[in-house]
């Protein structure tokens, strides 16, 4: 009996584990996924408030998979990271590498291609889990 309870508990916790201390993923689900974009072709390109580039496309795919509305806005790296720190936006993209100087101020996903990562607000582990699920899935599809 206790064995089953433990298994059930592990299942339950792994479904809701980990949570976001500041509810970023919940917010994205309720409203929209707010993505800060640092222009850096070919990863991200901005032309008259149309966003394109490989990372922009990938995040659009992620939003579709999770059933999220998505909105992009352009900014400088330092300004967008500041907004991450204040939990105002959810993701920052722009060809950022895993050796980024923002390591201390922002969280990051695993590299989607061995080098490039997405930045997230620090400690938003549920959002991170969803993003990384997506990244691992993409990697499996195109090895």
């Amino acid at each position, binding site marked *: 009996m206790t064995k089953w309870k433990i298994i059930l508990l592990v299942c339950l916790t792994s479904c809701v584990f*980990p*949570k976001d*201390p*500041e509810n970023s993923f919940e917010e994205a689900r309720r409203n929209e996924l707010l993505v800060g974009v640092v222009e850096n072709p070919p990863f991200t390109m901005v032309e008259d408030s149309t966003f394109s580039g490989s990372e922009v496309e990938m995040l659009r795919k992620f939003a579709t998979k999770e059933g999220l509305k998505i909105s992009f806005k352009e900014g400088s790296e330092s300004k967008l990271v500041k907004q991450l720190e204040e939990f105002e936006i959810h993701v920052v993209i722009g060809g950022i590498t895993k050796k980024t100087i923002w390591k201390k101020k922002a*969280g990051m996903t695993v590299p989607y291609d061995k080098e490039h990562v997405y930045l997230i607000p*620090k400690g938003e*582990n549920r959002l991170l889990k969803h993003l*990384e699920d997506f990244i*691992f899935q993409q990697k499996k599809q195109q090895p």
Partner: protein
Amino acid sequence: MKVIHDFELPPDLKKALKRAKKLEWITLVYLISVVIIMYFSLGSSQAMKTAWLEDVLSLVPSIAFLISSKINSKAPNKRFPYGYHRVFSISFLTGAVALLGMGIFLVYDSSMALIKADHPTIGSKMFFGYEVWMGWVMILALLYSAIPAMILGMKKIPLSEDLHNKLLFTDASAQKADYMTALAAILGILGVGAGIWWADAVAALFISISVLRDGLKHVKTASFDLMDRYPQRLNTTDEDEIILKVEETARSWPWVAGAKVRFRESGQVYFGQVAVVPKGKIDLDDIARGYEELRSLHWKIHDFTIDPVRKLPPW
């Protein structure tokens, strides 16, 4: 009269020392594996970082014990006429200072994590085709760092008491208490998983304070030993009753009118003086016999002089 002895433990304690050395070798290999495994699961958890640094530091007593017991077994010589016993006191003090320094750093570091409201980010990794949240991996690493350590600690404590070896005792009792560190860190990580970002920093602070407290306690004991405090039994504040027995024995000799003794700790053994007021003329044979009798009381009563005096000294 032969005053300088080669340091020889009684046969049963020689066995205990051999066993202690073996256990310390096992500890050393095990701890190195812990340090490596923990390092690769660290992530950005403050509690993990703290627990890891504590594990790195816990290498010091095992290494110090193995080196010191090698040096300690050397016989006294012209350059070191009292033998090498104090090597244990020195390594004990050094280890204690390291622990204290690390404790201060960790308390600062963990407090800063709390003050800055640093939210620990814990992601996932692929293991054999499965995606695993690193929090679970950290918890496994912590369990690996705690359970074998506890068993080793519990095995080493009785040996350290038999050998009157503070270095070994410190090492063993820290390991026995390691489950507290692991438990705190596990709770911290589970807290983070449940969305409580400060659980991690609070767990780290708890661990840091315990490191700091141990550091303070050991620096105090080590300094007092080096300042020749009255010898105490391990891990108590009781004065060692063997010394009272030495005094009683000296007083019971028929050629003695009064006796007073003082001893100090020199690593595992005691060094000291026995002052006696003789009745009438001094017979050197009496002193030699008395010397052997006192030495046979306990192996810790290792090296001392019997000084005939007119009047008992104030100590």
